[in-house]
């Protein structure tokens, strides 16, 4: 497994101040006091907070019910001081910025860099020449300290705190952001940029930007969950979590195998939970605090649950007695023949070669494998032995019959060992031995082949019968506590024991695993697979043994539960310890977003609803005065758990121009409608946007153009791409008021839908309160045309590449408008999104 090359969570836990989760008047006062703010700012904050409690979450647009506003840290302060040169920034924080390329950007003589690390701007620089012209580019907090008059005059005038619930929230708890002041007649050609990043999980970003700034966000953090050594169930059997590769197929909680879309590894410091469960005495699960397990809450103290209701519970929320869930394999493949690749001798000149040997894979073969696993051995490379006791005559005859049926071999030797009352049945066949070698030669290495576990139940039964006949026994003993009765089978192979348990589970028989350490006796650890209680009735049926469902006139009972798809095992113990800097791992698994770790179903953590979400709720206010021109560019690539709910608004005065360039690639859900209030005569507003909605994403973006004065013009160009089940929407409003004489507006929305599980919507609202206004609206939704792809392919371009080229062409008009660095970045991001390798 490789480390993430970019944007690792460096785990800066050393925040100088970390507010409690949730929101309160006290917290708002604390924030304000910490920042030494003037009293009028505190007043605004408190008013906004009151308004926030009053207002409701918007019900239109994206679904926000999953977002728990009480589960967010509203203020984090990483370092107390602000740094004026790059060298003074602490190396840990520097590292992050180096990863996202800030120094390079600086080398390219960008005007200034304001970087926001969590809630506080820690680094700022501005080209001296601009400073001389009187351009102010500061963190919002500094701006408030140094230029309180300017801030007081404009703060909250464009986006009033009562505008919407999120604007109220931002006004109440804002921290960080940029303050830009460009004095009259100063032309600012170079783009100003600031990088934003959410580092601490659950940290809200409530930056407040006033006037002009360009922001680009880039977040890549990974969330690991299990330490090394945890066994993950893959299609090739159980594997250590650290050995899982990109091309492995993992079993999900629904019992099917799915591919991995990303591997994650990180350092973890914090609580590590240790969980043990009944049914497997040999294993304990180590897991980080927040990892969700598929579980069933215990209903009765002294009785087993009767109804099995699944819920995803975080490890910290699990209690002793709750049930963990083991999925049965549902990925069934039934074949009558299986090919075994075997080695064979081709003569002195050629040496050994490999050939394919088809073997009938029927019930008889499965039972034969069962016998082999229990009693078989291979000696001298060509002798296949089955050793039985002389009382097991019937089984010997059974093996002979099966050998004839499957391999059509009738020749055998029978050696009688009078001394230990044994009989061994010997077959002399090289090919036969090669086939049985697949199941392990030595007892402690014996195992089943994984495809056998995915076969039909009738065959599984046979392998259980064969194995139990050899290694199994029926155990009954009177204890002080009562009469104990169970079926059990012993083996020294751990792998085999676990596979047998999985087979029994697939047959609807919950079995348990015990281990006995026999080091003192100089022997290998013995693994015991046992079936007890009511489940003995089911197992007994396989052997034609009639086990009564009542024992001593009491119903047989067991701790374990079982239904058609799952086996339920109760938690025996759960406690936590603190760990420091431990490597932990996690995956993203396609479709079901879950996998099986140490036997039980767990969530992969990266699916939307089971990751704690982060909230980014910024407010950007821009005031463009007479004949001024401002362009605000955003390339948003938040991590895919972030709710990006942003209010951006510009007030455009006479003959001024405001341009929003907005690219939305990241985040889980975005709601963003940059607006221009065209309040001066001849004002012009423009919006250029791209949205890419991938798996689990919803991009609800658009624009608002409010024409209030004569001869105002506006233009909206929106491009959206939906793929892999993503949903992108354009939601916009053009309003031409009664005073907007001869106002004109043009809206163009183009949408591409890449596959049949994605969705695209357009919700424009054009309102005209004036007879001489003009609005043109066009929207076009299509898929990438096959004709275009075919044309490109006829020129020798691969299908995938052709698709990418067409998408590039589609977003080209926006790319053209971006500063070079952003254009490169955007191209890269879009390409990554298409390949699906963005983590």
């Amino acid at each position: 497994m490789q480390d993430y090359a970019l944007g690792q969570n460096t785990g800066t836990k050393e925040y100088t101040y970390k507010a409690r989760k949730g929101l309160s008047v006290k917290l708002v006062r604390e924030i304000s006091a910490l920042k030494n703010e003037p009293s009028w700012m505190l007043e605004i904050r408190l008013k906004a907070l009151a308004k926030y409690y009053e207002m409701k979450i918007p019900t239109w647009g994206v679904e926000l019910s999953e977002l728990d506003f009480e589960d967010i840290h509203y203020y984090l302060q990483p370092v107390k001081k602000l740094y004026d040169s790059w060298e003074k920034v602490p190396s840990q924080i520097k590292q992050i910025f180096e990863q996202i390329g800030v120094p390079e950007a600086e080398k390219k003589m960008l005007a200034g860099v304001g970087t926001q690390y969590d809630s506080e701007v820690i680094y700022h620089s501005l080209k001296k020449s601009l400073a001389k012209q009187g351009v102010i580019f500061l963190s919002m907090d500094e701006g408030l300290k140094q230029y309180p008059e300017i801030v007081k005059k404009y703060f909250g005038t464009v986006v009033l705190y009562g505008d919407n619930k999120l604007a109220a929230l931002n006004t109440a708890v804002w921290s960080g952001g940029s303050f830009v002041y460009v004095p009259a007649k100063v032309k600012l050609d170079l783009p100003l940029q600031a990088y934003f990043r959410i580092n601490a999980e659950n940290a809200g970003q409530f930056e407040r930007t006033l006037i002009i700034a360009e922001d680009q966000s880039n977040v890549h953090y990974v969330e690991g969950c299990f330490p090394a050594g945890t066994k993950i169930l893959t299609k090739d059997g159980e594997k250590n979590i650290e050995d899982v590769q990109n091309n492995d197929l993992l079993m999900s909680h629904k019992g099917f195998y799915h591919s991995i879309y990303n591997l994650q590894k990180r350092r973890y410091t914090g609580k590590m939970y240790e969980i043990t469960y009944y049914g497997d005495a040999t294993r304990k699960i180590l897991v980080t605090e927040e990892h969700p397990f598929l579980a069933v809450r215990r209903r009765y103290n002294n009785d087993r649950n009767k109804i099995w209701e699944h819920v995803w519970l975080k490890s910290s929320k699990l209690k002793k007695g709750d049930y963990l869930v083991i999925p049965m394999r549902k990925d069934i493949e039934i074949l009558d023949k299986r090919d075994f690749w075997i080695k064979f001798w081709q003569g002195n000149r050629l040496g050994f070669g490999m050939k394919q040997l088809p073997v009938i894979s029927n019930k008889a073969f499965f039972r034969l494998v069962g016998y082999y696993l229990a009693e078989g051995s291979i000696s001298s490379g060509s002798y296949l032995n089955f050793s039985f006791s002389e009382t097991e005559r019937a089984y010997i005859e059974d093996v002979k019959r099966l050998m004839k049926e499957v391999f059509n071999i009738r020749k055998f030797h029978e050696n009688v060992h009078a001394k230990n009352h044994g009989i061994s049945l010997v077959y002399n066949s090289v090919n036969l031995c090669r086939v049985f070698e697949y199941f392990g030669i030595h007892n402690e290495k014996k195992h089943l082949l994984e495809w056998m576990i995915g076969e039909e139940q009738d065959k599984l039964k046979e392998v259980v019968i064969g194995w139990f006949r050899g290694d199994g026994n029926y155990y009954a003993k009177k204890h002080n506590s009562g009469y104990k009765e169970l079926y059990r089978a012993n083996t020294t192979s751990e792998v085999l024991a676990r596979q047998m348990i999985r087979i029994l589970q697939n047959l609807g028989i919950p079995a348990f695993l015990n281990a006995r350490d026999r080091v003192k006796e100089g022997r290998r650890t013995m693994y015991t697979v046992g079936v007890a209680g009511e489940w003995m009735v089911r197992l007994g049926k396989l052997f034609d043994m009639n086990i009564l469902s009542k024992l001593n006139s009491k119903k047989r009972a067991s701790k374990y539960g079982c239904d058609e798809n799952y086996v339920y095992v109760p938690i025996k113990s759960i406690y936590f310890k603190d760990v420091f800097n431990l490597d932990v791992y996690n995956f993203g698994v396609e479709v079901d977003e879950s996998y099986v770790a140490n036997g039980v179903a767990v969530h992969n953590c990266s699916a939307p609803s089971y990751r704690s979400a982060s909230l980014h709720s910024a407010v950007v206010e821009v005031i463009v005065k007479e004949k001024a021109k401002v362009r605000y560019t955003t390339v948003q690539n938040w991590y895919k758990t972030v709710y990006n709910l942003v209010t951006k608004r510009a007030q455009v005065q006479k003959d001024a121009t405001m341009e929003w360039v907005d690219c939305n690639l990241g985040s889980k859900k975005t709601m963003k409608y940059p607006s221009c209030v065209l309040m001066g005569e001849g004002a012009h507003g423009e919006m250029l946007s791209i949205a890419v909605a991938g798996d689990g994403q919803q991009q609800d973006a658009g624009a608002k153009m409010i024409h209030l004065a004569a001869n105002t013009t506006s233009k909206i160009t929106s491009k959206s791409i939906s793929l892999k089940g993503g949903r992108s929407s354009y939601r916009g409003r053009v309003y031409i008021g009664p005073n907007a004489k001869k106002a004109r507006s043009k809206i163009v929305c183009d949408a591409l839908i890449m596959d049949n599980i994605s969705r695209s919507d357009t919700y424009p609202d054009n309102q005209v309160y004036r007879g001489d206004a003009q609005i043109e609206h066009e929207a076009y939704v299509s898929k990438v045309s096959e004709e275009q792809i075919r044309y490109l392919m006829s020129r020798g371009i691969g299908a995938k590449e052709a698709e990418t080229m067409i998408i590039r062409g589609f977003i080209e008009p926006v790319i053209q408008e971006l500063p070079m660095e952003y254009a490169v970045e955007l191209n890269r991001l879009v390409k990554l999104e298409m390949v699906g390798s963005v983590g």
Partner: protein
Amino acid sequence: MNIFIRNYKVPGVWSENISYEMIGEEKEARVYLDARKPGRYDLTLVSHHKVRETRGKVMVRAVVGADAKVKIRGLIKIERDAQHTTDYLDIKVLMLGDTAIAQVIPELEIDANEVVVSHGASIGCIDKEQIKYLMSKGITRKESMSIIVSGFLASGVE
């Protein structure tokens, strides 16, 4: 082809649901909204494609006179199963007076990918040049307005 035509001349509220339930169905709708009388005109059009290979075309022409308020909502909704569909919604609104009010909401909800769906909406006023031209031919202002309006209403019909 199934064509249906609606003419609305007095204020009111209307809702038209064009639903495609048979594979290969083809429909065309033309709605003329003559809102020269003062009052509220509220029109909702839903073109709902439920099955595949359906083709639709919806055209709306509206003229809005003084003190009239027109609201037109046009939704094209394509279900997940309705692959290979095409639809086009075309809304044109002509504003005749300074006190005319129009609200046009053309919406798309697309759940399938193999589709070609688009809409266009425009709101505009009479070109003064056109009136001047007609008046230069000896037609009164009122008459020339009327000619332009009827020409506008007829546009889009092949």
